[in-house]
């Protein structure tokens, strides 16, 4: 009996230390999440102003200007940018993203995939490892963006994607990532990156007679790549925040489960202890009775 007692005690100890780790990880994720959210908020004024600028320009020019970046062509080669995380222990976060990527390939680009014309750029180590293992056409140039998350690094990746589109190495670029809703929910989405979906010039944007320097068409041509840079940057920030959110939830659940387990273990510990005491008592009493008799 004392052996069983000790066993239960050991288990309680190990569950407790695991719980401590998950608790700490939750706290760390919460702090990182706050920082990631701040980064999104910091970026917002810039992105908003850029959009405003574009609608100002577009609405004050008559016909929509044709641009190479918005030109639709028959899609033969596809580039998918899949944004996952570098680390695990964040619940089903990476699994869901990978699932979505595979579903997209299977549904939308099955033909292209058969011909081997689907390329995947993985951002984040987890997705990269998976796609390499399953023999997808992967490129790893940008997988380490999360290790040093700056606009400059992201912009390099965006420019590379734009370049491949311009030089007709690919005919469409899609991004698969997880949009940040709040700490508890992520939305896994497929988003068209290139060709640019038609720019809807918002009405009423034309508030003043602007002097354009250089000409409008050239300005738009300058503006487009920058908007794309910002778009990709937003995607990366979003999925960074989502990752921490997902990890926070996962760790919270783990801590809760550990609590549950501890409760059950405590009950069986107390039972075993009680049983040991009872047997001991019975032994003493019966021993004494034997002496007297």
């Amino acid at each position, binding site marked *: 009996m004392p052996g069983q007692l000790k066993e239960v005690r050991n288990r309680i100890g190990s569950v407790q230390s695991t719980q401590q780790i998950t608790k700490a990880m939750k706290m760390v994720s919460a702090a990182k999440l706050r920082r990631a959210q701040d*980064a999104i908020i*910091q*970026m917002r*004024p*810039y*992105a908003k*102003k*850029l959009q405003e*600028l574009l609608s*100002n*320009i577009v609405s004050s020019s008559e016909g929509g200007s044709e641009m190479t970046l918005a030109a639709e062509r028959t899609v033969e080669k596809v580039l998918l940018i899949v944004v996952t995380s570098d680390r695990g222990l964040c619940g089903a976060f990476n699994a869901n993203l990978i699932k979505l990527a595979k579903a997209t390939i299977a549904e939308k680009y099955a033909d292209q995939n058969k011909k081997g014309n689907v390329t995947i750029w993985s951002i984040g180590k987890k997705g990269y490892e998976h796609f390499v293992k399953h023999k997808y056409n992967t490129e790893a140039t940008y997988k380490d963006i999360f290790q040093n998350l*700056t*606009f*400059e690094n992201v*912009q390099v990746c965006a420019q590379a994607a734009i370049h491949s589109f311009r030089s007709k190495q690919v005919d469409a670029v899609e991004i698969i990532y997880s949009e940040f809703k709040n700490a508890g929910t992520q939305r896994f989405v497929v988003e068209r990156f290139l060709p640019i979906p038609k720019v809807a010039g918002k009405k009423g944007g034309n*508030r*003043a*007679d*602007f*002097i*354009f*320097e*250089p000409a409008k068409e*050239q*300005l738009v041509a*300058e*503006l487009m790549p*920058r908007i794309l*840079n*910002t778009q990709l*940057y937003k995607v990366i920030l979003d999925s960074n925040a989502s990752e921490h959110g997902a990890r926070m939830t996962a760790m919270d659940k783990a801590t809760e489960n550990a609590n549950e387990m501890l409760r059950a273990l405590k009950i069986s510990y107390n039972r075993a202890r009680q049983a040991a005491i009872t047997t001991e008592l019975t032994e003493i009493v019966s021993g004494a009775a034997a002496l007297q008799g």
Partner: protein
Amino acid sequence: MNLEILTPEKKLYSGEVYGVQMPGISGSFEVLEKHAPLVSALKAGNLKILKDKQNNTAQFEVQGGFVEVLRNKVTVLVEGAKQLGE
């Protein structure tokens, strides 16, 4: 007039200034009080803020971007910038 410098990473500068010199794509130019509405592209170079009529300035090294001038408010959008030493 009011000047704002925005980058994707943060708001870099915000405040009242006397004028600002920028590296336009076809040459450097300066915007002063009550400038007409303007949209222009910027190339990489130095941006100089004239804080007042005295020689009180601040310099930034900026990447390419855009500037919008509207109703005495100048908004500079650049992809990256860092302040140069005084």
